[in-house]
């Protein structure tokens, strides 16, 4: 190995630890970490060299319940039986899986969206849930509607992140209506007043330029979608 190669490896490893690689570069570096002993050693060196900078941050306890929320997210990702606080959600996911299996073939494309034609009972439900996913993949976002409060909240359950130069924008689509923007979905989630009836409402997330669609209508591909269903 030449000295230049050595320096390149070190510089890449340094930028990996520093955090300045873009998303693609970081993914490539992580793949290399498991296959290239020289690169792994270079990363180990930087982890040790730069760690004193992390030590300069005064420790802060995360809020109570953080560990429990992490464990619930692990449960959700693994699909194991629920902890109590996610029972509702899990039931909804099962239900969603069933209905998706039943009506999957009936899915119709409307304005580029996957709209699942789902018969939702018009009962007075207090809560609705939607699991947003890309076709056949694991759930990526979970949306809940609190009917009493008239709010819609959405949270991320997967590790999916929007490409660095894109934003995730959430759309609510009533049957036969144009999609209405519900705002950008950041990692911390999103909470909004819901003006539409949650019954039959489809939620979709599209990839948009940073800051959202410039036109007020979706301009990028729909990456995740799902339909609200009542929880029991």
């Amino acid at each position, binding site marked *: 190995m030449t000295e230049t190669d050595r320096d390149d490896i070190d510089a890449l490893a340094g*930028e990996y630890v520093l955090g300045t690689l873009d998303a693609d570069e970081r993914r490539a570096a992580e793949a290399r970490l498991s296959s290239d002993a020289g690169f792994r050693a270079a990363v180990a060196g930087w982890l040790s*060299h730069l760690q004193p900078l992390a030590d*300069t941050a005064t420790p802060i306890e995360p809020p109570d319940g953080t560990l429990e929320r992490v464990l619930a997210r692990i449960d959700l990702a693994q699909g194991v039986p629920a902890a109590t606080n996610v029972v509702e959600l899990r039931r909804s996911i099962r239900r969603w899986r069933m209905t998706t299996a039943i009506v999957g073939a009936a899915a119709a494309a409307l304005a580029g969206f996957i709209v699942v034609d789902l018969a939702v009972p018009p009962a007075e439900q207090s809560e609705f849930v939607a699991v947003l996913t890309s076709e056949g993949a694991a759930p990526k976002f979970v949306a809940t509607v609190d009917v009493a409060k008239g709010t819609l909240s959405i949270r991320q359950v997967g590790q999916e992140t929007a490409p660095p130069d894109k934003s995730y924008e959430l759309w609510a689509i009533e049957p036969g209506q144009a999609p209405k923007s519900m705002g950008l979905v950041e990692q911390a989630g999103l909470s909004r007043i819901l003006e539409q009836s949650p019954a039959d409402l489809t939620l979709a997330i599209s990839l948009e330029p940073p800051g959202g669609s410039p036109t007020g209508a979706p301009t990028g591909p729909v990456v995740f979608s799902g339909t609200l269903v009542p929880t029991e």
Partner: protein
Amino acid sequence: MLLARVAAGDRGAFGVLYGRTSAKLFASVCRILGNQAAAEDAVQEAYLRIWNRAGDFDAGLGSPIAWMTTIARHAAIDAARRGPERVSAASAELDPELMDRLADPATTGDRLSAGPRLASCLERLEADRRGMVLLAYCQGWSREELARRFDRPVATVKTILRRSLMALKECLGDRD
């Protein structure tokens, strides 16, 4: 080792690991993300990644906390990059006491000389270069954000960062 037990799916070990490390990781995350809700979500994401990747860690990577810190900082950086650029925000300024704390042997605990040594090598870098390295590490700035803040092309920022890292490494290595 805790991480090996976590890799085997041991939730008790994960709880112990969380108890020992969460205040430190949350500190790094909060420094990158000014927003409390975003920081709380990022630290959850960090522990989710630690759970998922615990099997990737081995002693060849050094100390577990440094590896976990990097996972947490990356999770925070991912969240920050989904938000607006922060160049004009108040966060554009580094904590003025940062270098003093770094140079204080008490800060780095059992690795007494590591902080002062890094501090003196950072001091040797030209001020803008030092600022770029510190903003990237401590506040999670991207090359693009650094390019705007320091009014340089992105490609130049990348070159500067890499040269600065090489200079740091040479300086740190000289004293081994």
